[in-house]
């Protein structure tokens, strides 16, 4: 495991100038409460400023690169019809209900409505605000909590659109709902700030598939926030495919809150972006709730994929599982920063966290950092991290059977990734992910190098308090 030097570098963001570009647009037709919400986000960001590498949660993210580009918030009004073919190519289409956003703004021409159970809302936030903004006031009461950092506050400051999904009590939606976020800049460095809200009512069930992509070669910054709220007994299955242009920046926050007996599963695959941060914050607020996070990141070239995960066990008898795998090629950098906090009173917590990384090149770098903070008794937490290279003995075994070296490397690399695909419950999404991963691993031109065996270290902490 290699670690970035501790002398943290202050991000070279000219904070005031950069922030001023994010002043909330006042000419939109928004209800008063929403304007207040945006202003509060802006004020928070102005007060706290951008995070820097001195902040523990940001020490690995190459923020400097983002600060160097004069990004401007994307306005609505692009002609989506010209893009629909590109979008279908880059994003795919599962054939069911689908909301497409271009630069963070709803693109109805590319979207598809489908028959959904009574009382279900699947729409864009902007259209919902335009139709009956005052009736959505509950959104401001219900969802926001203290901002995690200036980027999520800035998302709020310029938030205008995103997906709004509300599944009523007891409703089960079988067909996956697709959310596609596509970026196309036309040469202007745009930042898109979609803000999506998914509310799963008591004992409801829904599957959401999020895809993030953009025009190849475009310089843009996607700064999206997704809030997921699970009521008692709700079940949400969530998928993310991050396939942004490799020139882009992608800072995403998924903020999940779970009530009693709810179950949240998330599977993600990250391929794109120059710098990507896939942040997940889950609060297990209700007794017996369960969360299962699985992610595969495949940075190559000089890409950076950062995965800051925070799971808070706040109630008794909750279960959390994390399994993240990285395949890092070229001079790329993969980061897993997994933090579990077991709050006082969260007895009977069962938490596990596993991160495994495969380095395909001498220049590839991985930082893996499991963190456990336990403030309750009768807790079972395990965590393990491994960083290794392709197993030389396995490679020799395959070659001794006649399989050419490059092919043998491909077979072993894909085998490492395959576990993540096979664990993906939805067959249609699994097929899409399988295709994307196979495509990436067979075209990843970098010559893999290896000289040591996969090493692994599994530690286990059981019972009792630990500090």
């Amino acid at each position, binding site marked *: 495991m290699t670690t970035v030097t501790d002398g943290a570098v202050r991000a070279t963001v000219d904070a005031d100038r950069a922030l001023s570009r994010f002043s909330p647009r006042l000419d939109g037709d928004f209800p008063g409460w929403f304007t207040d919400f945006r202003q509060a986000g802006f004020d928070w960001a102005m007060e706290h400023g951008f995070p820097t590498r001195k902040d523990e949660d940001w020490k690995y993210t190459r923020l400097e690169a983002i600060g160097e580009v004069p990004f401007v918030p994307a306005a609505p009004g692009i002609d989506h019809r010209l893009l629909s073919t590109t979008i279908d190519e880059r994003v795919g289409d599962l054939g069911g209900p689908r909301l497409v956003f271009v630069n963070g703004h709803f693109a109805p021409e590319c979207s598809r409505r489908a028959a959904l159970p009574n009382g279900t809302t699947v729409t864009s936030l902007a259209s919902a605000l335009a139709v009956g903004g005052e009736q959505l006031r509950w959104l401001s009461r219900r969802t926001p909590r203290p901002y995690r950092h200036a980027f999520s506050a800035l998302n709020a400051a310029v938030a205008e659109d995103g997906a709004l999904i509300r599944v009523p009590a007891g409703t089960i939606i079988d067909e996956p709902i697709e959310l596609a976020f596509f970026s196309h800049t036309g040469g202007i460095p745009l930042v898109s700030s979609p803000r999506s809200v998914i509310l799963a009512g008591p004992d409801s069930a829904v599957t959401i598939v999020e895809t993030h992509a953009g025009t190849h070669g475009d310089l843009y910054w996607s700064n999206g926030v997704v809030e997921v709220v699970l009521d008692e007994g709700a079940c949400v299955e969530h998928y993310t495919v991050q396939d942004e242009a490799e020139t882009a920046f992608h800072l995403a926050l998924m903020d999940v809150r779970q009530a009693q007996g709810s179950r949240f599963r998330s599977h993600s695959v990250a391929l794109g972006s120059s710098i990507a941060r896939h942040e997940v914050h889950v609060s297990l607020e209700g007794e017996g709730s369960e969360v299962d996070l699985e992610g595969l990141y495949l940075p190559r070239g000089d890409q950076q994929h950062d995965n800051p995960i925070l799971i808070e066990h706040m109630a008794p008898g909750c279960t959390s599982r994390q399994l993240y795998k990285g395949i890092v090629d070229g001079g790329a950098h993969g980061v897993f920063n997994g933090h579990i906090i077991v709050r006082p009173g969260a007895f009977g917590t069962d938490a596990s966290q596993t991160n495994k990384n495969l380095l395909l090149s001498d220049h590839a770098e991985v930082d893996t950092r499991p963190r456990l903070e336990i403030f309750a008794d009768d807790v079972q937490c395990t965590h393990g991290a491994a960083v290794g290279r392709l197993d030389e003995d396995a490679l020799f075994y395959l*070659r001794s059977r*006649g399989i050419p070296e490059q092919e043998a490397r491909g077979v072993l690399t894909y*085998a490492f990734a395959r576990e993540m695909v096979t664990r993906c419950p939805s067959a249609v999404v699994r097929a899409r992910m399988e295709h994307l991963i196979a495509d990436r691993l067979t075209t990843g031109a970098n010559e893999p190098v290896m000289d040591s065996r996969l090493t692994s270290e599994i530690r286990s902490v059981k019972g009792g308090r630990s500090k």
Partner: protein
Amino acid sequence: MLRIENLHASIGDNQILRGVDLELKAGEVHAIMGPNGSGKSTLAQVLAGSEAYDVTGQVRYEGRDLFALSPEARAAAGVFLAFQHPMEIPGVGNLYFLRTALNSVRKERGLHELSAMDFLALCREKMKLVEMDQSFMGRSVNEGFSGGEKKRNEILQMAILEPKLAILDETDSGLDIDALRVVANGVNALRSPDRAMLVITHHQRLLDYVVPDRVHVMAEGRIVSSGDKELAVALEEHGYAGVGAEVQASRRSAVGVAP
């Protein structure tokens, strides 16, 4: 078919093979016996193309310089090693692995690649030979296989790849008598006038089933004694210490015993 001359192999400062000479003709089965650490497995690994060793000396295989060939090229040319410790490869299906291997080898040999259906038919046929259950095909390569199952899987691979030179590295170790019989039957079924085998074993037991043309004893990185199958019987009776005198003798005279 195979001529080994003055073969040395080392890892770092650790000299493992110290001048091995051996000749193996088509149709012959030779056994190599010897105590732990005598270099038997290293010899097998080096012949299959392991890059873990620094190697000097000469090995001609069908008149070609074996060391000029990559492991995959050796496989295509008909060299096969049944591993002492077959690798477990999670995430790679056994059937997929076997088919990829066979088609790689067939391609190099100028044969057309087999379709999934044709391969399955071939595989079923060969599995009977080693009395292997079809459920093994759906599993990852050797993952969760018992010792005996792994060894059968090696023999299955050998039967499918149809090598000219098969090297069996302690294929009998850890097998109960039934598994030993199955493995030995598999090996015997592959004996043919144009195929040579090098059988590395600790025990004479396997040689009751797979009767060798010659037996060599390895000690301290070279072959110290060679003879017919009676040598294996003598070893069983007197142990390696019994040939210890010969080890000393061969050292004094500095003459390796050639077959």
